[in-house]
């Protein structure tokens, strides 16, 4: 029994059907962790991108070193670090939030590069033209750069969303009950790993295929020449 749902081990098919709702509850946790982790990655990545592009090397170099460090160390170790070290400094977060934070932190290193590439792709002439037209910095950003950068950024960000989804099972090491952890617990208690773990694999395949299809639709829908302005 898990989440108050009983399973039936009388036959393979009955067993598979009886554990499906339990796995789906685990999947819901996986989706929540993915969305929260992605949101953290989007925000932190933008901050790193701005710091890395800072005119002063005193700011940009440490930012580059830090993001390189985030990118080159394993998620699971970063997660352990946050989970065991933060409490020593008096910051006690629930396992789920620590996990989402670790996911976001790791992927912020990747998203910061996407922001940078997206912003750099808008040519210098456009900024100069905006300046010649007497647009303020803020208006240049909101009306010239962002509308053109977004369609370039979205597809790459989408790929990282799918990657985050596939990294959520790592959160099981700090007791988060995401889908793989649920499948494994069912296996531990019924001595049958084959059915739950194969189902987790199948459900993952469905999730990533659906997410990829959704992203392709979004990518096709976005105007390639920038978001039209009124």
């Amino acid at each position, binding site marked *: 029994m898990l989440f108050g749902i009983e399973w039936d081990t009388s036959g393979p098919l009955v067993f598979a059907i009886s554990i499906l709702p339990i796995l789906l509850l685990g999947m819901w946790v996986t989706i929540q962790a993915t969305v929260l982790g992605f949101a953290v990655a989007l925000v932190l990545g933008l901050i790193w991108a701005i710091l890395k592009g800072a005119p002063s090397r005193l700011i940009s170099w440490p930012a580059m070193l830090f993001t390189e*460090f985030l*990118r*080159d*160390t*394993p*998620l*699971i*170790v*970063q997660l*352990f*670090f946050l989970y*065991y*070290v933060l409490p*020593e400094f008096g910051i006690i977060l629930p396992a789920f939030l620590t996990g989402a934070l670790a996911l976001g932190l790791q992927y912020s290193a990747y998203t910061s590069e996407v922001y940078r590439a997206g912003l750099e792709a808008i040519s210098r002439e456009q900024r100069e033209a905006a300046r010649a037209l007497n647009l303020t910095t803020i208006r240049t950003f909101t009306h010239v750069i962002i509308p053109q950068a977004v369609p370039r950024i979205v597809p790459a960000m989408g790929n990282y969303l799918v990657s985050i*989804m*596939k*990294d*959520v*099972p*790592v959160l*099981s*090491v700090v007791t988060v009950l995401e889908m*793989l952890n649920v499948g*494994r617990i069912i*296996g531990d208690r019924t001595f*049958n*790993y*084959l059915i739950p*773990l*194969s189902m*987790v*694999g199948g459900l*993952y*395949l469905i999730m*990533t*295929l659906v997410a990829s299809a959704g992203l392709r639709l979004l990518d096709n829908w976005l105007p390639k020449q920038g978001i039209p302005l009124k």
Partner: protein
Amino acid sequence: MHWTDYLPALLEGAWVTVQLTVYSTILGSILAFVAGIGKLSPNSLLRGIAVVYIEVFRGTSLLVQLFWLYFALPIVGQVLGIDLRIPPVVAGVLALGLNIGAYGAEIVRGAIQSVHHDQHEAARALNFTPRQTLLNVTIPQAVPEMMPSFGNLAVQNLKDTALVSLISLGDMTFRAEQLRNFTQDSTTIYSMLLLMYFGMALVLTAMMRGLEHRVGRWRRAGV
């Protein structure tokens, strides 16, 4: 305890991490070439196998694959009446290699397709067999294209080896966990662990750059 007291255990784990990275990178590279070329094969059966392999291993989580190989595969063996219980180290190398191989296959495919069409026509005009064209014309030109992405994959693979600690393989992360359980000195141990992975990744990146330089030499010779 002083931080240097943790070093012997961590270095012992580091050696396991290095071995795992090397073996799974070799396995992954072989699979990447086989599946990447297979996906471009005119034979629809080969193409189908390659596509299924790539989609399954790219579409599911590495940890799911690792647990499946370690926990579920022995049960498949039981059903079939053969012994499929594999030691953790084999499960680790297999899962890492299969996973990285699927990502690598897409890189190989992309690089092969990026070789200009004229080259194929020229090879055909010179009466090369398809096999000769692939081995002597296409692949030598495709390999330098793949190298930057392969470098990223190798670092990804190094990071992924940390997951094998979850099937009780004594890699660097596993040793750190043992030390933490024993001493409760999380801050020092995990800081050291992070820095050691960072150092290993920097060395690996430098090695891959060197390799990239080597395989790309002929291009700069002036064609």
